[in-house]
């Protein structure tokens, strides 16, 4: 019972915090330090002598909604199933707001939980991985609660999910943050009563270039071989043997393997077809959600006044 009361009070607190909009950024750099979201695309546009082929702006949706793209493995391709799945995903998106988020963003997920006392369960954490495609898209949240690291995996289109809220929208330097498991706990500690930070409209998603410190070995994986950008002290923990092994295991030719890249991606032509199919509905949903959000921002101060 005491637990329930505490929870209620924390909810109240969070509402007041929402109003006050305190900056709550322990680890990230300041939001002014905004970098262009997609340096790769941006830099090639102005400089080229030969004009690159006109790229469809719709294609930029691939960063926001990567799960709409099918698995590139031809073994599992099935155009009909993909189409049906996309329709189902849009239906689900019409029901609840699945916001734009990236690996490194901090989310709060509320699910209806038959085991919990209040029949709902809220978990806050940093998204350390996004995987899967279609209706099977998943993401993993990680947090440290009472000095105990906890990770929860959610299906993005799980009907049990009541709401997904982005508390802080940002990217990290790496595509997966599994190294947080071996990092010092403060790097993955986030308070449950954290208040959401609102980015002004039109700003690109900031990249948080914080570099975490790893705990001494043993580690869960051989992080030194993975060319991680978001880890600062990896060299401290290595022995000469590890460095040698790392040199031997390097695969510098891998980035030139054009077909490997090709087999992992969905080509432009297929993507434009897919995005053309879902673009209108996604756009409508986005616009209507924004309107509602603005109204709420205007409406929320009232209880405090009254």
């Amino acid at each position, binding site marked *: 019972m005491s*637990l329930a009361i505490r929870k209620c009070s924390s909810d109240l607190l969070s509402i007041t915090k929402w109003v006050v909009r305190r900056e709550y950024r322990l680890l990230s750099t300041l939001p002014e330090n905004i970098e262009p979201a997609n340096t790769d695309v941006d830099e090639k546009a102005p400089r080229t002598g030969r004009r690159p082929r006109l790229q469809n702006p719709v294609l930029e949706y691939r960063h926001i909604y990567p799960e709409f793209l099918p698995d590139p493995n031809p073994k599992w391709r099935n155009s009909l199933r993909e189409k049906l799945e996309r329709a189902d995903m849009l239906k689900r998106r019409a029901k609840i707001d699945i916001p734009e988020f990236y690996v490194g963003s901090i989310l709060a997920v509320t*699910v209806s*939980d*038959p*085991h*919990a*006392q209040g029949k709902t*369960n809220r*978990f806050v954490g940093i998204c350390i991985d996004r995987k899967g495609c279609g209706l099977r898209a*998943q993401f993993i949240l990680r947090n440290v*609660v*009472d*000095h*105990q*690291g*906890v*990770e*929860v*995996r*959610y*299906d993005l289109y*799980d009907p*049990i999910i009541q709401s997904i809220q982005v508390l802080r929208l940002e990217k990290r330097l790496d595509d997966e943050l599994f190294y947080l*498991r071996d990092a010092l706990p403060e790097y993955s500690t986030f308070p449950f009563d954290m208040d959401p930070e609102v980015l002004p409209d039109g700003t690109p998603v900031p990249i948080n270039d914080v570099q975490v410190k790893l705990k001494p070995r043993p580690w*869960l*994986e051989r992080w030194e071989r993975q060319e991680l950008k978001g880890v600062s002290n990896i060299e401290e923990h290595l022995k000469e043997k590890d460095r040698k*092994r790392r040199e*031997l295991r390097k695969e510098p030719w891998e980035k030139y393997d054009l077909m490997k890249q090709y087999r992992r991606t969905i080509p432009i032509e297929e993507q434009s077809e897919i995005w053309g199919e879902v673009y209108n509905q996604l756009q409508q949903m986005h616009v209507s959600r924004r309107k509602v959000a603005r109204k709420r921002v205007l409406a929320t101060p009232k209880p405090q006044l009254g």
Partner: protein
Amino acid sequence: MLRRLLATNTLRGFHTTACMNEVRLLTRLRVVDNSEIGKRAMAEGKPPKVICVYNKQRVGYIGDRVMVAIKGEKKKGILVGLKQKQSVRVPKFDSNNVVLIDDSGTPLGTRIHVPIPTILRTILKQRTHAKGADYTKLLGIATRFV
């Protein structure tokens, strides 16, 4: 050099796959309640070892009863958090947590200082029978659920 390395790898003298982190015989656990024996064992750096998992698979899953060897004694405990990969919406912990109980299901400590998964409520209720041990007492000493 690289060739030699590859050769050793293909011989498969050792595992190269990631481990499953299962709780089975002789796994070290972390006691997360404030029972005297548990606290001392953890403080001395001698965490308890599993000597029996009470289920058919002999691999401990969440809510399973285990017997542990702790400070030269045999104690029973309940697994309240696992490192192993969990199904969707079930939390995965960074350590294998155990809460020590006696034969009747009463916890030895009075507080659990880490969060425990909500699914334990249902599991422990199912495992509790009128005549047998009452495991739900464990839920009473929990401080936080995730």
